[in-house]
């Protein structure tokens, strides 16, 4: 089945996690140790438990999995509501990023039940009991659910994600686009750079130092198809590289996990086609 969007429901039930033991291949400092089970709410009829990854690299201790339980009747509908409730009422040391609480800022991207998604738009009705909450797979943990985005943001900077045009801006009005030209940005401009896709991409796991990853390639595509940008050739020159672009092997984890329902896999294929178009 070709994956076209994360809205697709798979016909098969796939394992939530790749079936290997949890600590397989982890460096000694990353091995997960048993954590704390926090007290359950009293008198609750609908209890939801969370197994949350806790790690503070500065403490010198190994990561652990803490178990929290909340009363669904006294909690908002989304996972982020539950995390905020845990932080407010159970354990104030739990650390995570959050801002807009409605899926437009991309701060609360995390690995929920084995799938990268935004905590603020993952309904508690959709998660397992108990549910696992881990940080994004591919980033050094700063604390708990907060990953270090320095490298992926530097990769973003490396594709010059701004308008490069030799034609001076027209006086008195903006650089104009026809509705058709604007339409080409659909499916690109909605990206909020939450890095759910890049963190789920095996090619970026193995070669993330050189492969740009789906989020950044989607952004590169956004500037390649912009009718106002005049650096298309230079941009393609920069992208044509066995690692920067061609490390994408169309695994399509990116499209499967995009919480905005975008299709980065298709956009990467379009970049490859653009390079082929100018060669023949």
């Amino acid at each position, binding site marked *: 089945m070709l994956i076209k969007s994360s809205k697709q429901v798979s016909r098969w039930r796939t394992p939530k996690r790749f079936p290997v033991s949890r600590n397989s291949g982890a460096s000694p400092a990353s091995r997960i140790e048993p954590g704390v089970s926090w007290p359950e709410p009293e008198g609750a009829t609908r209890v939801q438990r969370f197994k949350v990854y806790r790690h503070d690299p500065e403490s010198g201790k190994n990561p652990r999995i803490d178990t929290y339980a909340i009363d669904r009747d006294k909690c908002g509908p989304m996972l982020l509501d539950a995390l905020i409730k845990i932080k407010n009422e159970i354990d104030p040391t739990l650390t995570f990023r959050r801002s807009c609480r409605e899926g437009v800022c991309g701060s609360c991207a995390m690995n929920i039940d084995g799938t990268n998604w935004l905590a603020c738009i993952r309904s508690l009705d959709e998660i397992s009991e108990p549910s696992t909450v881990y940080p994004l797979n591919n980033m050094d943990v700063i604390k708990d659910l907060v990953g270090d985005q320095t490298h992926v943001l530097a990769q973003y900077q490396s594709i010059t994600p701004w308008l490069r045009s030799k034609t001076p801006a027209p006086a008195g009005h903006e650089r104009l686009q026809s509705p058709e030209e604007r339409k080409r940005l659909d499916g690109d401009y909605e990206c909020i750079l939450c890095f759910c896709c890049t963190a789920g991409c095996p090619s970026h796991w193995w070669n993330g*130092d050189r492969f740009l990853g789906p989020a950044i390639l989607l952004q590169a595509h956004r500037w390649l198809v912009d009718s106002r940008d005049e650096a298309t050739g230079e941009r393609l020159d920069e992208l044509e*590289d066995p*690692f920067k672009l061609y490390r994408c092997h169309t695994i399509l984890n990116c499209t499967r996990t995009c919480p905005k329902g975008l299709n980065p896999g298709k956009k990467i294929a379009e970049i490859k086609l653009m390079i082929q178009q100018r060669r023949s």
Partner: protein
Amino acid sequence: MSDWKRHDPLNRNPATARSSALYRAIGLGSAKSGAHHWWVQRVTAVALVPLLVWLVASLLAHARGDHQVLALWLGQPAVAVTMAVLLMALFWHMKLGLRVIVEDYVHADRVKFAALIAVDLVCLALLAIGVFASLYLAFR
């Protein structure tokens, strides 16, 4: 980025480096190649679809024949030429695919370069043996 992930061919980023994240993300820049590899991999894949269907169907048709029958069939000019084309597409495709696997998973430069040379030479050797066998059956 984790140290174990930093494949650092020129030792530009030793543990004491104070270089910027952008410097590390840019690395050695674009190789400005890769499109040819991508295109040829697709061309050979397209070629292999009919060729492999033909090969499997032909082998099934000769399943009841003995060695002599199969050798005679392979010796026919059209079959020998098709077989040579199939072997070229197959081993070229194999060379390109194995190269990607090595680049994906082997990160120590010396081992990687040795493995890439080995992949190319082994595929070339297998191709030479296969084409020689086809011609041998055609011209003996």
